[in-house]
């Protein structure tokens, strides 16, 4: 660890502290940002460079059993992109080789995130029974602080409590599950729809369609878990993947979900995949972003589609079956006991494919029509809409209208008639807005007070970019990256790979839950109640 370091003379973009392009020093001592340092402290000359906090990825898939099933499915991608071990300088951690592709190996993922200036990443979908696996993968993902969200929107015990009107018991269970698995937040994927897929009902298409096995609706699941997260004062509210992902006309259920939770804090994820008009394909971005703009209790990440190879990995099993049938690509489905599902289909987004071009446009419209960058933050739903390695190219599309317009001329225009993007959106994001949607915004939405900014007391996670007229090039190759005070990237090269901190919560609950829960485990679970909680989770939980 670099105990003390002055990053001197850079142009600082620290929107959380109201700093927009001011030349000033950033001082680091013992892993934290401090107000000042003695004059003889070591200095990193950042004159002429741009200084931001380390990036924070609010929604990625990088460390889960589902990711590992996807890795296993893709030897062709791995053999095309072998990765040798980096030349690390300090000997503290063993440099590791790996393979790339859309789902890189764990060490390679950590190195590559750091190489983009990202220092905090969350895996957005972990089956609780597989939590042990995610902790192991995160342990092998260096350079980034990380955690995961626990899948609950199709959980058998939870559905039973909702059906019985036992919402407090449901909340206690959610709290127990978060603490037992070392998760950070509650995730809902296709509420009720995965259980419908597993039980033969195939899917649920509307908020009030009844899941026949349990007599429960998506609306009740959403309300219960949203209220649970807010009542438990979790740092991040419920993280929602709506019903009907990827279907034309799904804008209706997305808006209905937002309206159902009106006035309640909630985060909607990869909203691009949920913003399509119908019954044919069209952009539904405008009504969605208008609703978000006028409802400050909501936040979203976009889930931008980027043209090229992707791998779709989701708990949303029914969607992956449909994608397999429509694309003809190979398909993995894993039904996960009592909790959720997993589907995987490799995919190629083509700019000449009309639906893919529409998806690309919808994502950009959400960004460009957003009036509050603090609540509309960047994601590609890695690797679903594209790899996290495409973030720099996405930033360029947002900051440079000429690049965007040029690309727009190349894509299939068939479904873009009447879309805001095709009609001409002149907005260009500023560097400060980029700092918000990639750093300050996600950190605030995640409730990470020490992340996403450069004020005294913040974690010393800093990215320094050399100015470059090519925005994509600039964001792809930071000159320096500092993680927890450690100089991870120096002169554009990965030099250190510290172990990241585990971000998790352990909210309290009423112990009266436990006898009933044990009876349930004894009756239906194949993992003993006593063996279910993960032991030895690194780092203390975040206070709630």
């Amino acid at each position: 660890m670099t105990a003390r370091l002055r990053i001197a003379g850079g142009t600082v973009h620290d929107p959380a502290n109201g700093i927009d392009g001011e030349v000033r020093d950033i001082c680091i001592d013992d892993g934290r940002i401090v107000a000042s340092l003695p004059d003889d402290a070591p200095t990193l000359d950042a004159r002429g460079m741009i200084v931001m906090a380390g990036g924070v990825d609010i929604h990625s898939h990088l460390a889960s059993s589902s990711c590992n099933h996807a890795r296993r499915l893709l030897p062709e991608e791995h053999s095309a992109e072998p990765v040798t071990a980096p030349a690390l300088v300090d000997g503290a951690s063993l440099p590791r080789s790996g393979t790339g592709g859309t789902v890189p190996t764990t060490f390679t993922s950590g190195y590559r995130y750091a190489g983009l200036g990202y220092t905090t990443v969350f895996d957005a979908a972990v089956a609780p029974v597989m939590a042990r696996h995610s902790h192991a993968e995160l342990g092998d993902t260096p350079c980034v602080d990380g955690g995961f969200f626990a899948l609950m929107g199709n959980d058998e015990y939870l559905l039973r409590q909702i059906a019985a009107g036992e919402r407090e018991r449901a909340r206690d269970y959610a709290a127990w599950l978060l603490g037992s698995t070392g998760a950070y937040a509650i995730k809902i994927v296709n509420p009720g729809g995965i259980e419908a897929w597993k039980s033969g009902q195939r899917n649920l298409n509307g908020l009030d369609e009844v899941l026949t096995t349990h007599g429960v609706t998506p609306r009740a699941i959403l309300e219960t878990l949203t209220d649970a997260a807010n009542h438990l004062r979790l740092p991040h509210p419920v993280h929602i993947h709506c019903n009907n992902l990827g279907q034309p006309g799904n804008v209706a259920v997305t808006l209905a979900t937002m309206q159902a939770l009106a006035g309640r804090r909630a985060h909607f994820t990869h909203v691009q995949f949920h913003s399509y008009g119908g019954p044919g394909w069209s952009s539904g971005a405008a009504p969605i972003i208008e609703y978000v703009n006028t409802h400050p209790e909501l936040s979203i990440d976009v889930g931008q589609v980027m043209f090229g190879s992707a791998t779709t990995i989701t708990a949303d099993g029914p969607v992956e079956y449909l994608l397999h049938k429509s694309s003809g690509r190979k398909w993995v489905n894993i039904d996960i006991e009592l909790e959720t599902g997993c589907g995987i289909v490799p995919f190629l987004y083509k700019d000449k494919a009309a639906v893919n071009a529409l998806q690309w446009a919808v994502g950009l419209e959400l960004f460009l029509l957003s009036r509050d960058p603090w609540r509309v933050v960047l994601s590609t739903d890695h690797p679903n809409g594209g790899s996290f390695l495409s973030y720099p190219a996405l930033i360029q599309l947002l900051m440079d209208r000429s690049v965007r317009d040029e690309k727009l001329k190349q894509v299939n225009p068939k479904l873009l008639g009447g879309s805001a993007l095709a009609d001409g959106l002149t907005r260009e994001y500023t560097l400060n807005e980029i700092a918000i949607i990639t750093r300050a915004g996600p950190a605030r939405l995640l409730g990470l007070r020490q992340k996403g900014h450069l004020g005294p007391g913040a974690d010393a996670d800093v990215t320094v970019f050399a100015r470059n007229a090519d925005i994509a090039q600039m964001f792809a190759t930071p000159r320096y990256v500092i993680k927890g005070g450690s100089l991870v990237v120096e002169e554009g090269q990965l030099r250190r790979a510290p172990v990241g901190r585990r971000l998790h919560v352990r909210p309290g609950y009423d112990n009266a839950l436990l006898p009933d829960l044990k009876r349930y485990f004894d009756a239906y679970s194949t993992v003993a109640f006593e063996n279910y909680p993960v032991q030895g989770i690194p780092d203390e939980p975040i206070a709630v």
Partner: protein
Amino acid sequence: MSVAHQVEHVTCLGCGCGCDDISVTVQDGRIVDAIPACPVGRAWFGDGSVPWEVLQAGKPATLERALIEAASILTKPRASLLVYLAPDITSRAQRAAVALADFLGAAVDTATSDPAVGGLLAAQRRGRATATLGEIRNRADVLLFWGVDPNRRYPRFLSRYALEPAGTQIPNGRAGRFVIAVNIGADKGPAEADHTITLEPSEEIAALSLMRAAVLDHPARDQSPNLASAIGLIGRLTSARYAVLVHDAEPTDLPRNPLRVEGLIALAQALNGPTRAALSSLRAGGNRPGAESVLTWQTGYPFAVDHSRGYPRYMPGDRGLDRLARGAFTAALVVGSPVLAGEAAAALGGIETVAIGPGASRAPFPTRVAIDTGTAGIHEGGTAYRMDEVPLSLRPPLTGQRSAVQTLEALLEAVRTKRPGSSA
């Protein structure tokens, strides 16, 4: 004699079932009972006694000297190395062993059997439709056993997961399930099946193909009686709410058509059109799926990985043990029980071999260094993976003198001291 004590909720790794409901009785440092372990589980636990020696060229040595010697062997210039992962180690030990292989530029091979490899490769071509064992327990209303009776080698599979227990969607347990046995020659399904058909081995692949065609609404005509009986199963499978096909992914005494697994994968996937279906692949014990899982997240490939060029290469057609038998390696690190036999053992005896694991000092081949450690789940806690790749907690009933993971991490430090910097 000391008073016996119980250790509850112990996880058994005797087969891939991963039963974690075992109550182990310990007295005087020995396991004296394991309930309700099956015969396979009892054999796995034994009395828990293992040797605790450290040997250098067959003679007792200190751990420190043995590690220095092992590091010297593994870091020799121009060495060509194999790291072999036996099944009975925790995933943390597997992670440490693959880290060593990466640093040393070694090839890695595992106890993944050839039939299991066939399944992994077929799934890489096609994907797969599967489920964790609890889904089978809670949902399967039609079960089809393809040439396997789990009672033989996975004795609690039927009572814990597949047949007898009541489930969330199967409140009446066995009475709520229809069981089909497909005998493939002498590979017979369970005797308690509700319906049994028999196919000659020569008919098997055609049957799987025609069954899939029937699911896809392409009924075949003019088939032999046996094939017609196979196609006749489709009505029962497609009218299930949740159909589960079960096969044995491990080798048996009988030769097996290697195309079987791909036929079953394709059939299970196709059944998800008219209904829901999953293929359950029975795997042997230890922590075999753990090795495949760790290798996948660290290298991108589930088995047969070679680091000799400074990055992971996939060599599924030329595995480490095959290359070992051909004399491709100058040294080897065997991690876990050194139970290799035949050509592999002979080849290990002919090169410089380091063995670290349970019973390393009793290896059936000469070793330069042998360091005994505990066994996963008996002396060592951590994680092991069930046959369905669910990670399980291990509660060791006995205390070991030396853990595999600590020994491997110490060895890694020793080799890094011998050869600073990366292998790249």
